[in-house]
């Protein structure tokens, strides 16, 4: 298979404009003759559905939530980047592009990232026009902050709830189109398969989560905006329902899956407190602007702390190791996420971790509290501090927070070309569910940017190009491919319901998560990955012989939903391990212990691995086939990332 990214010719800064001119347009009168399916209505999906409907296409939008407003985009806290340069501090489209490429450890496609930086400015305009209440200065203009180690202040925010406000903006645009009848919204409906007719995506099979009804839906094109797959790890900052099913089933129908091993581990999460833990809660990265990360200098002191023999506040200044400030004097506590996470893990591996489990480091606010007072801190971080106290029963105004890295975001996803089209013609992927813009590591406040860029400003152009080349004839579910796909879906549900074993879906999911975290988490080795592959295969076998699901298909059955998602995670997990094993280098979120500098930093191998690893499904229990898209860097010089 030849992976053609379809990157337009010409200088980087002109590619998108040129491309917009070159794409074919659909005649306005013809637009209403095209149906487009959008699966997922988070930032990327809602913005795409609304924008496409505004253009005149008939959109069918699907969400497994009870309302589009509940998508996990809502939980993004920190902000959204845009190269507005409102602060006059030297930002530009090119700088945002450069930071994103560098932050992604040179594993993203230049042209896509440049376009992202270009349209970032339109996003802010669009959101403000929708009534998104961004933070403002006293003069009434928009406020910005520096975020996640950026050297400029380009992050727009709405207190600690930026994702919520942006999602509600996109949701309102979507709601408007639902009211106009241009979008038909299917809530509590899960996509379970993709239908391909004559090599082109022509529809999906869904299950109504309340009635269990299996339905066929046909359209001229399908857009997947179904989010990331971080829940492979069971414990992550993702929402409980976040899953890979739609993307994975599209993969099994021919869409290549790119860079699955690139997972982002977020450094500032509330540590695990027990086996019952169902999810992890993120403490916004913005806390690292003012919090100082440390562990005790000696293992002995950390042990005494863990045994509750001493209190954290009793540890003297000279006995504290502010390891990020020590190792990275230039960036200090603001090093990128992967670096901060890995260093926290190193400290815990050395035995200097804190908390009952020893898997935590301190994030200390005593200095800023001294400087601006508890009230000042409360104004900046009040909601985060309150949330921390609710969860841990500890008061972060009085003692340092305990934090530990947790799975947060997946940079990998369905392979897409410049048009965001997957390897299946007519199937598009937007937002976190594609792989395109963040390389091996995503910068803070860039996920919201990408989701909205794809949905508002990219897909409306590129999908038109495809549709213009598709005859405006009605599509129906008559084709046998629909029947066949539905039969497969029914067969799988039947199979899940009939095993009647002893272990619950959560039980398998936790076991998988444990394997993934141990061997394919923050640090990976060839040996560990091979072991993990075997373990996952064993677990998958056990799943299909010992799973327990009760109830019926024809009702709300959350166990059945979960079982189907875990089945997909069990396959995707193995692919992640394969990908991590294949990539003999360390870059961004992918850290192979064999490949590191003497100081323990990630060691890239640009000569052999400056490519996108796109995997092709070849059938149940068959090894997937690797296809490579070589990354060409014409506008940046590949350097060793250094934050010293």
């Amino acid at each position, binding site marked *: 298979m030849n992976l053609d990214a379809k990157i337009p010719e010409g200088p980087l800064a002109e590619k998108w404009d040129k491309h917009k001119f070159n794409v074919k347009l659909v005649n306005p009168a013809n637009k209403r003759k095209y149906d487009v399916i959008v699966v997922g209505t988070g930032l990327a999906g809602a913005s795409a559905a609304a924008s496409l409907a505004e253009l005149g296409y008939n959109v069918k939008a699907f969400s497994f939530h009870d309302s589009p407003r509940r998508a996990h985009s809502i939980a993004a806290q920190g902000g959204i980047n845009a190269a507005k340069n409102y602060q006059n501090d030297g930002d530009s489209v090119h700088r945002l592009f450069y930071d994103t490429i560098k932050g992604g450890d040179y594993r993203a496609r230049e042209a896509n990232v440049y376009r992202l930086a270009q349209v970032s400015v339109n996003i802010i305009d669009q959101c403000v026009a929708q009534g998104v209440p961004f933070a403002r200065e006293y003069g*009434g203009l928009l406020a910005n902050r520096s975020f996640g180690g950026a050297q400029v202040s380009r992050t727009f925010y709405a207190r600690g709830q930026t994702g919520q406000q942006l999602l509600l903006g996109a949701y309102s645009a979507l709601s408007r189109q639902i009211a106009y009848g241009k979008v038909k919204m299917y809530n509590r409906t899960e996509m379970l398969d993709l239908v391909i007719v004559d090599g082109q995506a022509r529809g999906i099979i869904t299950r109504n989560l309340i009635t269990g009804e299996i339905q066929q839906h046909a359209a001229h094109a399908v857009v997947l905006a179904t989010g990331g797959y971080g829940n492979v790890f069971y414990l992550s900052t993702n929402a409980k329902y976040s899953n890979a099913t739609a993307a994975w089933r599209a993969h099994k129908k021919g869409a290549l899956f790119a860079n699955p091993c690139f997972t982002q581990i977020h450094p500032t999460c509330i540590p695990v407190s027990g086996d019952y833990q169902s999810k992890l809660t993120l403490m916004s990265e913005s806390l690292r602007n003012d919090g100082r990360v440390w562990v005790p200098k000696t293992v002995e002191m950390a042990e005494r702390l863990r045994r509750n023999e001493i209190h954290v506040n009793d540890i003297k200044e000279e006995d504290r190791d502010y390891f990020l400030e020590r190792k990275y004097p230039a960036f200090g506590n603001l090093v990128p996420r992967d670096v901060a996470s890995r260093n926290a893990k190193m400290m815990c591996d050395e035995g200097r971790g804190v908390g009952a489990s020893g898997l935590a480091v301190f994030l200390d606010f005593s200095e800023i509290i001294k400087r601006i007072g508890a009230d000042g801190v409360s104004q900046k971080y009040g909601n985060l501090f309150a949330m921390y106290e609710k969860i841990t029963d500890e008061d972060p105004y009085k003692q340092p927070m305990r934090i530990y890295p947790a799975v947060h975001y997946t940079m990998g996803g369905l392979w897409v070309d410049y048009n965001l089209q997957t390897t299946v013609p007519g199937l598009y992927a937007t937002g976190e569910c594609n792989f395109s813009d963040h390389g091996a590591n995503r910068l803070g406040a860039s996920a919201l940017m990408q989701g909205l860029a794809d949905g508002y400003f990219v897909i409306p152009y590129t999908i038109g190009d495809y549709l213009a080349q598709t005859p405006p004839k009605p599509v129906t579910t008559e084709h046998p491919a629909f029947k066949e796909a539905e039969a497969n879906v029914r067969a799988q549900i039947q199979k899940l319901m009939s095993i009647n074993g002893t272990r*619950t879906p959560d039980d398998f999911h936790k076991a998988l998560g444990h394997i993934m975290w141990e061997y394919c988490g923050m640090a990976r080795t060839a040996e560990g990955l091979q072991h993990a592959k075997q373990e996952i295969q064993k677990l998958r076998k056990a799943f299909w012989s010992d799973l327990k699901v009760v109830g019926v298909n024809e009702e709300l059955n959350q166990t059945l939903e979960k079982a189907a998602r875990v089945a997909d995670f069990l396959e995707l997990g193995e692919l992640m391990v394969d990908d991590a094993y294949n990539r003999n280098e360390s870059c961004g979120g992918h850290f192979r212990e064999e490949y590191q500098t003497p100081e323990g930093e990630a060691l890239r191998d640009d000569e052999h691995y400056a490519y996108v690893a796109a995997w092709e499904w070849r059938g149940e229990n068959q090894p997937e086939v690797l296809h490579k898209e070589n990354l060409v860097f014409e506008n940046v010089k590949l350097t060793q990332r250094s934050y010293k």
Partner: protein
Amino acid sequence: MAGSNPNAKPMNLTLKVWRQKNRQTQGNIVDYQVRDISPDMSFLEMLDVLNEDLLRKGEEPVAFDHDCREGICGSCNLFINGRAHGPEPGTTTCQLHMRKFSDGDTITIEPWRAEAFPVNKDLSVDRSAFDRIIQAGGYVSVNTGGVPDANEIPIPKSIADQAFDAATCIGCGACVAACKNASAMLFVSAKVSQLALLPQGQVERKTRVENMIAQMDKEGFGACTNIGSCAAECPVGISLENIAILNREFLAAKATSNNLA
């Protein structure tokens, strides 16, 4: 493996849980025992424990809505011991922790109750009425593209902050669940006042409030009688002042709009 409080003892609890097969059937309270509940668990993790137990025994787990489990998606919606989202102020169900309960407690768990929120199953209810209210006008009608620069219209910080406070509504429905009248006025007012405060919302200011209120009434929600339960139970602190703004907006719109319907 204890979390923050190494002295916390595990608890045994009696749960009285509303079970209902589907929208058409009658439901009833069923008693369950859960054992060894860590005080560091969240309320939903406690229910996870119950559900895993039930599933292993071959019984059907209790259906309940939840997703982000960090208090922002608005999915979780349990009426716990006679209170929306339980006894803690300013807290969603998912952020309620078991340390707020004691060993031996009996906890009654019910779904939101309102004519406009029919029960799907057990503790899961249908809140699509909220979506339809937003669809009636809870937006600014701007298409993608062709909008002015974000800094073209300055907005005083105090106004932006006030709009933000209203905009933080998570749409969980606790206001309706807690209200004696099952009124959705706090929910509606949050959106109306957010957009009425901002310059971007001015163009459709009158039609918005008229249409949203009409839809709210059509959905079968009750009328506000200024009791205040809604704001007291709102997990994100949407204030009653928004309802006053809503009333004012409605009155002004009805008195001055060109709408003759």
